[in-house]
């Protein structure tokens, strides 16, 4: 059974931005969309080991800082070269001002 863990406070992430969250030896990326929803994916790009939290959020896209590979962070879908493998996504809920993800 996957656990819900507190990733950050709501205010830790700006709108249309992303932060890194490390837990249990793994790294995740926590996104806040322009319409104020939260999402979570694996923290590393599936192409090469680069932290997506250093990348750029544009609408529902996260662009990797290393090779500009793009994913839809809501679905995890890879959006073309140089990324070919989808990103794992995780359920997110907001409770009492905290962003919780199920890992």
């Amino acid at each position, binding site marked *: 059974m996957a656990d819900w863990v507190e990733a950050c406070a709501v205010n830790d992430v700006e709108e249309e*931005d992303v932060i890194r969250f490390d837990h249990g030896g793994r790294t995740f990326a926590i996104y806040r969309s322009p319409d104020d929803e939260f999402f979570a994916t694996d923290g590393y790009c599936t*192409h*090469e*080991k680069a932290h997506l939290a*250093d*990348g*750029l959020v*544009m609408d529902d896209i996260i*662009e990797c*800082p*290393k*090779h*500009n590979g*793009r994913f839809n962070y809501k679905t995890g879908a890879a*959006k*073309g*070269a*140089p990324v*070919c493998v989808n990103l794992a996504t995780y359920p997110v809920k907001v409770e009492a001002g905290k962003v919780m993800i199920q890992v």
Partner: protein
Amino acid sequence: MTTAAKTKRDYSLVGESTRRAIETGLASAEWYHTDVPRKAMKELMQRSDGPAIRDTIVWLAAILGSAAGIVWFWGSWWVVPFLFVYGVLYGSSSDSRWHECGHGTAFRTRWMNDVVYHIASFMLMRNPVQWRWSHARHHTDTIIVGRDAEIAVMRPPDLLKAALAFTGILDFRYSLPTLVRQASGTLSEEEKSYIPEMEQRKAVIVARWHMAVYVATIAFAIALGSWIPLVLVGLPRLYGTWHMVTTGLLQHIGLADNVVDHRLNTRTVYMNPISRFIYWNMNYHVEHHMFPMVPYHALPRLHELIKHDLPEPNPSMWHAYREVWPVLLRQLKYEDFYLKRELPPTARPYRGEFHEVDISAAAE
């Protein structure tokens, strides 16, 4: 000096250097980055269609205008300045458009990047699928011997080859047969080493499209009984490539290899506004390699922000070539020799212990 080459560098992407780079952790390594606050970096990374649309309109208008001049003045000496302009726009500025649109940073809108990327790839006789992947590798493993597919001048330097590069002959001789081979359905082992299997078929198909256009151009030239179609399509890769080589060679030539700090293997050079338009600000090359997400139009601002941590830029192309020339001559005998550019006192120091390179082999 203890700089005599221990073993010859093996630039194959599937050879001994490749194996060593992977074993020693040089491949896909963590690279040095200057600290930039997230807020500032977010601002610098922001995409916009405006600057690239403006520049692309100017670019295409200049290409079409100079092409019209070539057709109009064909057969007289007045054609020469038009050939000069058209050649540089087609054979050189296409490289920076290919580069920026390949990164997806020139325009905010993805399809605009893709359209210009494919046009520029065709102009350069580059397979757009193959080169997208080779450039990704270049950013992962910049000037890592055995890994980087885009090392322009290998060691010891072949100066004749470097000189011929300005004419485009060698590139032409490589690019055209490569496209023919790929169009016939064959990718080399090296190409397969960096193009994922699911993309390899696309590389073959796009090579066939490029070849179809060249065949049509040749047929059109024969039908017209004129060289003009070939002067406009294909041959500018020869006579207009000199500016791309002049600016592009300076990116890494004479600097360190097998290091994981772009300040050691990449060069920033101040250039005149015309060259910067042709080159789309890639003269800020250390900045680009450290932060490839920053669009070309924001690189001057990035440079201002992080220059305290970078070597002093060369004040001109002339200065950079004068600086590197003796290093190249020295590398003819000692291929480990390289130029280590001095950091300002405000910079975080180089950490030689993290690199395979022999820091004592450096000229400063």
